């Protein structure tokens, strides 16, 4: 790719106007030409100036309290220790090996009179939403999981009835893989009444949902410590 073409992609990226494919081209070009990072940084900085033309507006106080409360139970990521290319490679390999995509709109019926667990409540919201989606993927070692989500409802729920058994010193941890960044979405509790697990946090378009095996309580580093046993694409 010539620098001229990269500069066009860079401007488009800074303005948020690229297609997914163009985003991939941009990052591929950066891998080959790391020196072009400065072009991208300049454009991102210029785009920030655009942000400043929107007048600041005070958010409701309740949001501050909500966020500060949420961070106490939120895992955090360490600075990147492994080279970026390697980590992306692990997830991409896992996804390509185990992934089967089945995009189905799957309405489900619930008895609203029963005392419903949060995952089931979220499932109702998801199925009621206009942009409800589902996808199924095979698990390394047998069985499959089905993810249900709605961007507008801001929820994702996963069916995990077929996950292989694990020992007492292990736990299944869920992740939203956003771009290359895995963000913890909580743990799966096996043996509970509902076969659904509500993911912590809101799904973003393009997220890959992955499950890894961690120690009880989840990965202490805030990042997956092993390759995913399953990865579900939401595209």
């Amino acid at each position, binding site marked *: 790719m010539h620098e001229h073409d990269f500069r066009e992609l860079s401007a488009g990226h800074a*303005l948020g106007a690229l297609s997914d494919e163009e985003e991939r081209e941009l990052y591929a070009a950066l891998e080959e030409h790391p020196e072009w990072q400065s072009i991208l940084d*300049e454009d991102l900085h*210029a785009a*920030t100036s655009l942000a400043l033309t929107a007048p600041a507006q005070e958010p409701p106080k309740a949001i501050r309290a*909500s966020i500060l409360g949420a961070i106490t139970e939120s895992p*955090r990521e360490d600075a990147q220790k492994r080279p970026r290319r390697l980590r992306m490679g692990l997830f991409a390999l896992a996804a390509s090996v185990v992934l089967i995509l089945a995009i189905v709109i799957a309405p489900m019926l619930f008895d609203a009179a029963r005392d419903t667990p949060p995952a089931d409540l979220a499932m109702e919201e998801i199925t009621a939403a206009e942009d409800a989606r589902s996808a199924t993927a095979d698990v390394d070692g047998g069985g499959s999981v089905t993810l249900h989500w709605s961007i507008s409802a801001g929820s994702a729920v996963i069916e995990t009835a077929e996950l292989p058994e694990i020992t007492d010193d292990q736990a299944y941890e869920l992740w939203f893989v956003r771009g290359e960044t895995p963000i913890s979405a909580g743990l799966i509790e096996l043996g509970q009444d509902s076969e659904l697990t509500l993911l912590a946090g809101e799904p973003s378009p393009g997220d890959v949902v992955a499950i890894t095996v961690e120690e009880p309580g989840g990965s202490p580093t805030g990042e997956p410590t092993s390759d995913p046993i399953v990865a579900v694409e939401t595209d």
Partner: protein
Amino acid sequence: MLVTMVIDDVEVPEVPDAADPATQLLEQTADGGDTAFASLYDMLAARAFGLILRVLVDRAQSEEVLQDVFLEVWQTAAKFDSARGGARAWILTIAHRRAVDRVRASHSSTQRDLRIGVRDFRGETTSVEEHAQLRIDGGRATEALRTLPDAQREALVLAYFGGFTQREITAITGAPLGTVKTRMRDGLTRLRKALEG
């Protein structure tokens, strides 16, 4: 703990806000400082919220996105690299990305076309308070935006605040794709140069 910036032989673009107080707070947040994080929120939430509102318009969705943004800031603070820019730019980039993702997921293209029709996308303000606020915080940026040729400013504003892709902008403006890309590229360059003074 990163207190000093490492400047190696590679030329680093000038980043005027790299040493701002928000950057220090973000670095303290990365070390686990929830007090620093609260201060960072107090410093930048209104700025981020204003940007998200400008893109999304819908207040309830904007509030949700604001929470997602700061949760992401908390979770990924360790990945912030001050050599590449300041904390305010980093956070506003996250806010912008999430707002655009959300507006694309939440609106059918028909609804977004209608949004364009009823909103003024030329960067002009409509109220006295907004105008005063802009002169205090974003005056230079607003003035710089005004210096752009109409077609370039339109491309920038449709993309950045409208959340439209380049292809969608060709449909809205009637200009060919190559022209839209050139307008964005040249417009952004011109904006940067206007701000450098």
